[in-house]
């Protein structure tokens, strides 16, 4: 099993749900984060004085999937999250050694099917 972590624009969250359905995935977890990358934050003016915000709000989506699903999921995320502007985000893939479904006690890939 692999874990896919995608750091994407918040407004793309609605579309993430579609990935689940279309790829018949089992689950997804989403966190609000603040990110900083090539997109260097933004400026606000408070009473005329410039304030630099170094971090921009992003969404982190985590999906644990089976090895053979990784490519299609990553491709699907790239497709929905792409705008072409700086700040589109990144996807990271790492290894998951075991999974357990709490409700049933199943473990291994069964837990995420």
């Amino acid at each position, binding site marked *: 099993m692999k874990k896919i972590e995608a750091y994407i*624009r918040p*407004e793309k969250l609605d579309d993430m749900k579609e990935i689940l359905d279309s790829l018949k995935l089992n689950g997804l977890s989403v966190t609000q*984060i603040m990110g900083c990358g090539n997109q260097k934050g933004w400026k606000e003016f408070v009473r005329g004085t410039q304030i630099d*915000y170094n*971090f921009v709000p992003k969404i982190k989506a985590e999906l644990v999937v089976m090895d053979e699903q990784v490519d299609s999921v990553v491709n699907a995320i790239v497709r929905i999250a792409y705008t072409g502007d700086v700040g589109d985000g990144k996807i990271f893939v790492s290894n998951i050694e075991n999974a357990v479904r709490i409700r049933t006690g199943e473990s291994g890939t069964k837990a995420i099917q």
Partner: protein
Amino acid sequence: MNYADVSWMLTSSALVFIMTPGLAFFYGGLVKRKNIINTIMSSAIMMGLGSIMWVLVGFSLSFSGDIGGVIGDLKWFRLNFDSLTDATLAYPNTLAFAIFQMMFAIITPALITGAVAERMKFSSLVVFVTVWSIVVYYPLAHMVWGGGILYAIGSVDFAGGNVVHISSGVSALVLAILLGKRKNFGKATYHPHNIPFVFLGAALLWFGWFGFNGGSALAANGLAVHAFMTTNISAASAMLSWLIIERIANGKPTLVGASTGMVIGLVAITPGAGFVPIWASIITGALVSPICFFFITAVKKKYGYDDSLDVFGCHGIGGIWGGIATGLFADKTINSAAAWNGLFLGEGALLVRQLAAIAITIAIAVVGTFIAFGIATLITKGIKVSYKAEDSGLDISEHGEQAYPAFNGMD
């Protein structure tokens, strides 16, 4: 106007004033988190713009002289009428009256902005409400309260069912359609992001409405007391009937529902507060909820227009029902300003005039909205933000601010 009246009129003016911030929270809580600043600003801007315009031209156009029964003149430009501060002068030639009425001129255009929330350019909105005040609000205020044609035909409107609610509600519908839908409309119609704020706003609206309706007696007299009570009872009744509908239709009574019920109960009693008996205010409030609920859930769905926060469904429809209810329940013994009793007391003449007044108000609102929309489109080159701006939220795109910047992780 005696000194007790001055005390009550100033108090009422302060109460009506706080309704606009109340509205800002009522609306602001109902939108997505990324749009609350823009939504609050859309109401707040009227506190500045509406005040200055009123003092310069608005009061004069509404209450000085009469041109064809449709609008006043500019003789009181800059409020330079005689005896400016003589508190004992009779209406309308008194500054206390000008203050009280100013608060109405502030909140009415602010009401419209709920319909276009989450997608209209702020600069366009500023142009729109400026023009709209001139082509819709001042004329209507003149026609109803300044001795114009709606007064002449004998229709009554105690505190602004036509002037405030039907006008803003209908204009909201037209503007929402002209503006077009939000990007995700249909997928995720609503996203109230802060329901306690919705309730805070509704509570401030109810609180302020005591001045809105109670102050419309223009004196600290029995009529003010009466209007205060009918106002409270209609709000209470509508809140309960809305919750009962929700309980039946969806299983659970909600706080957004309770807040909505309060507000439409207040809307519905506005034209009749000083004309109908207390028992009628129970009925007025009890019926406004099913009527508005039907429009919001069924009619809006059917026609698919994107009236973001249901300004038409609440203020337009609620105001129309209120105007009709006044024609049904008015009682001359409560307020002799009504020339006839309502239908329930056996006279149909008033109801007919109420319907005529509603129709005229709708016509003016529709035409005026087209004009204001046209001018706004010209001046600001299109009135809708880009999809990208919708995505990132109007707080960032229009105001460069985030409402709760610590929310995601910064302290």
